[in-house]
């Protein structure tokens, strides 16, 4: 019977254009095409790669155009059975949360191809990059745990080869560390996925469909669900990375080729934060509420620790890498504040961080191209010979710091607004992180761009037209998102609200009323009757008030 339902569902989905499948498959085909380019003409490889990257970007914009604003659930759903028993499907769908990550991925890949080139062996480089794109997009649109895991894991392979093949001096160490850390995390997740599906089946047919598993809460015992949540949480904590698992990140970012760093920071880290939303909060709401204090603490530690480390770095790329640790801390804070604002801000910040850090890595890569060093001590007064370059760098730096009017501000502000409702003290500490960000980035900027350039730096080349072309869209997005974030929030909001409602439905947790309806006003006459209604009401709001009380 279920087979018949699946078949009809697949048929219904098959009528419309399967845009999400095309979205995932196009870069994969591109990778194959690049690999087939004649060895004697390697310059074509880049053109083919950019072509396919652009086509994927167009498809991702197409997804944005087809997306219906105001719908909370999955849209553009596709479903085709892949394996019969256990039930595993090629199930794709998109909602307000994944939409923006898909668009971000679609845009960032062609830009990273245009903005930075490898100096040798171009063919495999572009093939791996396109394969990486397919994996990232697949992760964001997967609606089946098995498919998600496959995509989540497959991403490792191209990234591993990109770092180890085209990275800098210490690339092998960094690539191995990256691969092993992430795979170690995924090891737990795979067991978690299997256990979730098999426990949920209770001897019946095993399914890996996310919605089926998430909407039927209570099948798995509370304590078990917490263990399962932890198994997922470790995988994502490594990927994000949260504080104790972050050590692979500075190495991988620094040693990766420029495009690798852009994608690593811009997209790959978001796989983890996205995972928390989708497989933490949605799949295990009770456990997520239970773990929220710990996760928020890790996020705040990440913010301050990342900022302090960034301030101490001598290498420009390492500063940006540690700044990612700090920014991702904000995203964790927002996610586990479990408020509508906090989660919306997190999703926004994921995109904002992807754009601005991507641009920063591109700029640092361009500095390295010109000077063959990233050491801050060796760079000085670049503003003089390259004012336009410096201007670009300034805007991107300001966006990363969170200057009002640019995208970084909106994300951080909304996150802090949300987290303040449930976690006041944590938020207070996190705000310090914003100040620290200004400190380390401005200080680095000052050392690199201000002053009088010495001999080596005086001949620093100005921004080339093609480089400007790659950076311009990012700058436009930075400004647009900063000035007019409404269309972005509008599209994600129903999904985020639905997620918070889902958590409330399955747990004792209640979002503070302020988050949705504004300050609660109780007329005096009702107040007495409310007190009389007794303990139950107070219990219901127990979590919220308890958390709120921390701030008094």
């Amino acid at each position: 019977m279920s087979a018949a339902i699946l078949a009809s569902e697949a048929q219904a989905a098959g009528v419309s254009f399967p845009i999400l499948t095309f979205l995932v498959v196009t870069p994969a085909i591109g990778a194959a095409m690049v690999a087939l380019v004649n060895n004697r003409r390697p310059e074509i490889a880049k053109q083919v790669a950019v072509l396919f990257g652009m086509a994927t970007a167009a498809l991702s914009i197409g997804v944005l155009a087809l997306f219906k604003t105001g719908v909370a659930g999955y849209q553009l759903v596709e479903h085709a059975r892949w394996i019969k028993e256990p039930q595993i499907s090629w199930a794709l769908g998109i909602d307000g949360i994944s939409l923006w990550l898909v668009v971000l991925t679609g845009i960032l890949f062609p830009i990273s191809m245009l903005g930075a080139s490898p100096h040798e062996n171009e063919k495999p480089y572009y093939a791996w990059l396109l394969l990486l794109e397919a994996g990232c997009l697949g992760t964001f649109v997967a609606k089946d745990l098995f498919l998600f895991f496959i995509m989540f894991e497959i991403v490792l392979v191209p990234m591993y080869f990109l770092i180890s093949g085209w990275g800098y001096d210490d690339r092998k160490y960094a690539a191995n560390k990256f691969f092993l850390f992430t795979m170690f995390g995924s090891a737990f997740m795979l067991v978690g996925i299997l256990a979730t599906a098999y426990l949920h089946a209770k001897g019946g047919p095993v399914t890996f469909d996310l919605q089926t598993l998430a909407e039927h809460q209570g099948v798995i015992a509370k304590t078990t669900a917490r263990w399962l949540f932890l198994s997922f949480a470790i995988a994502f904590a490594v990927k994000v990375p949260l504080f104790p698992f972050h050590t692979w990140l500075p190495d991988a970012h620094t040693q990766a080729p420029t495009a690798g760093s852009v994608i690593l920071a811009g997209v790959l880290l978001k796989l983890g934060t996205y995972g928390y939303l989708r497989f933490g909060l949605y799949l295990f709401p009770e456990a997520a509420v239970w773990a929220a204090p710990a996760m928020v603490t890790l996020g705040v530690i990440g913010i301050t620790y990342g900022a302090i480390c960034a301030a101490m770095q001598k290498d420009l790329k390492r500063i940006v890498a540690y700044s990612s640790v700090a920014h991702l801390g904000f995203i964790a804070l927002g996610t586990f504040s479990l408020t509508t604002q906090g989660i919306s801000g997190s999703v926004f910040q994921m995109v904002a961080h992807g754009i601005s850090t991507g641009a920063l890595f591109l700029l640092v890569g361009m500095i390295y191209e010109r000077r063959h060093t990233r050491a801050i001590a060796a760079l000085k007064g670049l503003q003089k010979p390259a004012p336009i370059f410096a201007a670009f760098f300034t805007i991107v730096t300001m966006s990363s710091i969170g200057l009002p009017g640019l995208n970084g501000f909106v994300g951080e502000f909304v996150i802090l607004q949300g987290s303040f409702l449930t976690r006041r003290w944590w938020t207070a500490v996190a705000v310090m992180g914003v100040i620290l960000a200004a400190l380390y980035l401005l200080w680095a900027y000052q050392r690199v761009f201000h002053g009088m350039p010495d001999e080596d730096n005086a001949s620093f080349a100005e921004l080339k037209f093609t480089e400007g072309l790659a950076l311009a869209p990012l700058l436009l997005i930075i400004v647009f998102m900063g000035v007019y974030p409404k269309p972005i929030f509008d599209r994600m909001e129903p999904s985020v609200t639905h997620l918070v409602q889902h958590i409330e439905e399955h747990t004792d947790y209640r979002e503070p009323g302020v988050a949705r309806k504004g300050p609660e006003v109780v007329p005096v006459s009702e107040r007495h009757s409310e007190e009389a209604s007794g303990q139950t009401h107070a219990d219901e709001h127990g979590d919220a008030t308890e958390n709120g009380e921390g701030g008094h």
Partner: protein
Amino acid sequence: MTLLAEIQKLDTPNVEFSTILPVLLLLGGAVLLLVIGSFLPKRSKTPWHATFTLVTAGAAIISSVVLWFRVRDDGAIRALGDTVRIDGITVFLTIVIAAGVILTALLTDGYLRRERLEGPEAYVLLLLSASGGVIMASANDLVVLFLGLEILSIAVYVLAGLHIRRARSGEAAIKYFVLGAFSSAFLLYGIALVYGATGSTNLTAIQSFLARNILTNNVGLLAGFAFLLVGLGFKVAAVPFHSWAPDVYDGSPSPVVAYMASGVKTAGFAGLIRVFVYGFETSQADWRPIVAVLVVLTMVIGSVLMVSQTNVKRMLAYSSISHAGFILLGIDAATDRGVSAMLFYLATYTFTVAGSFGIATVVGRAGDNSHTVDQYRGLAKRSPFLAFCFMILLLAQAGVPLTTGFVAKFMVLGSAVDVGRYWLALVGMVSAVISAYAYLRFVLAMYGEDSEEGAPKRYKVPVGAKIAISASVIVTLVFGFYPSPLLQASRTAAPIASAAPQPTAAAQP
């Protein structure tokens, strides 16, 4: 008159030849090849011997396919006085073993020519050994199991020493033989003890005896379990019965190792399924904890020791030990799901491991000695084909998604989780990460490093090896992308006790 009647009772069972056709084909092919081989020229441009082997193995596969449909529709066939049981597992594993023979034969041809060792004996032994493996997979009697094991093993002992001019090949053969004979003794003693405890060597009889009776003193039976586990554990190279594997894999001719790691291992696991999951089904509480310990040891020690290997054959040896641990997870689960996961694992692992040793055969060059990691440095530039294939096969063994290695691991771990062995699954995944590091080292050496000085600029890949390696890679990728048909087949094959006389509740005391 009475005497005559007695003789009638002792009459040999009716032999239904069609049911054991695959065995007969392999055995007959071996004997025939021995005869024809003496007429054919020893050295010839045309690969007569290899072709004959391929045809024989192909015929065994075809006859198995016929049996497959018969078994699928009518249930398991019990033949030769219930000493042989042809069910889905038998047929599935027969095809897997025959596929292993085909891959090995394809590799062997080029190898024998390169090493100037041409002749039919390698193929004769290969077919003989495969017939032993198939007998093991169809055994429903411990004595038949032992018979199969010996036919399988003795041929492989000789195969290990095939390279007569290479001392290490001889050393490997002696080591394998001495330790193998020792383990056979354990197996035989285990059979004797189980017979003593249950009064039968027939697995169906043992199963129903154990279901109906509770032994007041089961020391003999438990010792029998243990000895059987040692004997079969040796064949599949489970820790702590693994110590022969690295040395023997290292010393034996590389194509032979491809067979050892695929065919022999498959036969060993067939025996384990038969004896433990089927025969001792009702005593799971007694043997499952021991198997669980073996699983942990095998997975972890295999992976950890793999990391420090610089010789590709030794690395693959430890890798195959670690994989044996994963496959044992299915035995530990002792469910249909576990068995079907094992079947899938064995089928796909046969290809990945045979392909890997195929590459080791080619890169090993004349003398079969160039197996260090140095030989693989910069291989991507010198031979993109070999490097690409090896990369895919290594990633598959590391369990990277979209390869069969991932699906196989996913299935066995699923079967472990299904019976509540979360910690075993977790240990498995962690050891998979450790082993991934070892595989990556070779991948990185091929792609990220420069060639050693004096490394050959190009490799001569014989046609047979090219076919075998390509086929392995194609199977690894195709079933990695779309595992459904093979999973379906393994699930159809797995239910083991369906046709056995189920011990009814009423019959129990």
